[in-house]
């Protein structure tokens, strides 16, 4: 006979109560794991999407006035002022996921001014997540062709195969972009090298759109860029702060719900153990009569409580992980995620599992403190009390 054996026997003597208390702890911990896991998935998702929204930073030449900086966003013609050498430096800054140069020019087409933007076809498409409405996209980075925005195509009734002219040079329309609801609709796009050649601005671009790999480090990345290159950086602070606050509130809401479940589980343990202390007060008296110290009694109840935490934690983690896998995709499935091709948004992290297990045990031990204390306060005289 030893402490462990006695505690195990005590734990199992009221099978029903043991099972229900354990179920309470398991459900609480399962909710905790599932919500933390799904919450993490949601956060990752939101972050990914925010990063999919396009450029987070716009690199402009130094010394531009505010109006000129805003005109980047409206698609105005801009002076070509950033040398390509700066672009290479910016791309090398850690935290920069992609940096896509833009050469903003204008051309007259059927006597109407039309924006012509020189781009890197592959990088630009990745950045803007363009879809092609008709025709096709560029096949090579210097293909002689033009891809036109939806509004421009509509205005001039352009379709793939038609001819477009840039500064008098005929270029075939190879594709029309799907309407994006952005300034891309009212622009035409040609490969950067072609644009630089036509407008004779070798080695210069108007601005550079930068996507950072971590939104939370956007400010730092911005400063770093200005350190290594002789440029100005415009950040979209509003976007970042709203995205970060959404991420934060999603996490907080999930944690609050998880906390309720976990708290209920803890009260379940307290309740069960208090009942057990009351039920066994005579036995506790007998144990004291047999020479048990208060310490031993305290340890016995703490161990019993800890076992509830450990077993409940293991069961809970198992159920929670399963639930996260089964239902996680439903929870995160919404209009936002539908626009992205995501396979699995739920990621099970061993850190979370370990954290939950130790949390479960600690919580159970904490819950056991009061009942265990109550047990030590019982008098050994209870052993002789006549029932």
């Amino acid at each position, binding site marked *: *006979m*030893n*402490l462990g054996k*006695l505690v195990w*026997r*005590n734990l199992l*003597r009221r099978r029903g109560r043991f099972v229900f208390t354990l179920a309470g702890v398991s459900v609480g911990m399962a909710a905790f794991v599932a919500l933390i896991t799904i919450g993490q998935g949601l956060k990752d998702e939101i972050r990914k999407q925010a990063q999919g929204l396009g450029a987070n930073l716009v690199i402009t030449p130094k010394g531009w006035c505010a109006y000129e900086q805003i005109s980047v966003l409206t698609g105005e013609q801009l002076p070509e002022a950033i040398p390509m050498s700066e672009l290479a430096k910016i791309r090398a800054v850690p935290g920069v996921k992609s940096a896509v140069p833009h050469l903003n020019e204008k051309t007259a087409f059927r006597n109407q001014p039309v924006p012509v933007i020189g781009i890197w076809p592959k990088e630009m498409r990745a950045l803007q997540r363009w879809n092609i409405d008709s025709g096709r996209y560029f096949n090579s980075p210097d293909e002689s062709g033009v891809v036109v925005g939806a509004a421009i195509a509509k205005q001039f009734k352009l379709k793939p195969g038609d001819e477009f002219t840039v500064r008098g040079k005929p270029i075939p329309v190879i594709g029309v972009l799907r309407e994006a609801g952005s300034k891309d609709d009212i622009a035409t796009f040609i490969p950067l090298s072609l644009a630089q050649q036509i407008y004779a601005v070798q080695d210069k671009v108007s601005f550079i759109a930068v996507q950072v790999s971590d939104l939370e480090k956007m400010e730092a990345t911005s400063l770093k860029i200005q350190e290594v290159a002789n440029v100005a950086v415009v950040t979209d602070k509003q976007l970042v702060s709203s995205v970060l606050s959404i991420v934060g509130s999603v996490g907080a809401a999930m944690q609050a719900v998880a906390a309720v479940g976990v708290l209920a589980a803890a009260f379940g343990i307290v309740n069960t153990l208090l009942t057990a202390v009351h039920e066994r007060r*005579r*036995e506790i*008296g*007998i*144990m*004291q*009569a*047999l*020479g*048990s*110290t*208060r*310490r*031993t009694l305290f340890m016995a109840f703490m161990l019993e409580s800890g076992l509830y935490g450990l077993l409940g934690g293991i069961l809970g983690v198992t159920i929670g992980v399963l639930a996260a896998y089964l239902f996680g995709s439903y929870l995160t499935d919404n209009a936002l995620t539908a626009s992205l091709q995501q396979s699995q948004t739920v990621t099970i992290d061993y850190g979370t599992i370990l954290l939950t297990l130790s949390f479960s045990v600690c919580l159970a031990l904490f819950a056991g403190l009061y009942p265990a204390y109550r047990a030590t306060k019982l*008098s*050994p*005289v209870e*052993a*002789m009390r*006549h*029932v």
Partner: protein
Amino acid sequence: MSNAIIELEKVSKTYGSGTAETKAVSEVSMTVERGAWVAIMGPSGHGKSTLLQLIGGLDRPSAGRIVLDGSELGTLDAAELATVRGKKIGFVFQFFNLMPHLTALENVEIALWLGGGARSNGRAMELLKRFGLGDKAHHLPSMLSGGQQQRVAIARALTNEPDILLMDEPTGNLDSGSEAELLALLGELNKAGKTLLMVTHNPAVAQCAERVLQVKDGKIVGDTRNGKH
């Protein structure tokens, strides 16, 4: 050198306070010699059990001194008192007080563990065999008769080889056959040198002891020796 193993000096125990104060034990002084067999008799609620609890260190007196085999209980802290209970005293209760979810063997082993005495679990089995319970070792208390349960309880009380056995109505819940067997067993233990102190209602049971104390209103009002010892 005095041969006393239990000494009480003006021991009182009061419960409650003010007008609700009740004196369960009132200035009791007495001595029990080593190897004696003493019965405590008296009406219900007159302090017999309280007296036993105080002697056994289950409770502390409100006033007075209790010396058990040379150590004064009042000077011991809770853990030391627990050690005294575990090693020097064996308790036997009216309702046997076995752990219902543990087997007979485990009920004896638990005393071995808690009393911190000999760690060999062979001793528990040895005791059960000695009391004719070898084949019942793995039975739960509910599967044993009252007499068998009480023998398990006595085996448990003897596990750590205490000098003193304190018994609260040990025969109170036994049929007459089991009662006779138990008294015979107690007689053997007494001959082997154990000091026995038992509370009983039954004059016939008290007759088996060598000395009978009468308790009334928390005081010892009679102290007679049975001639046959």
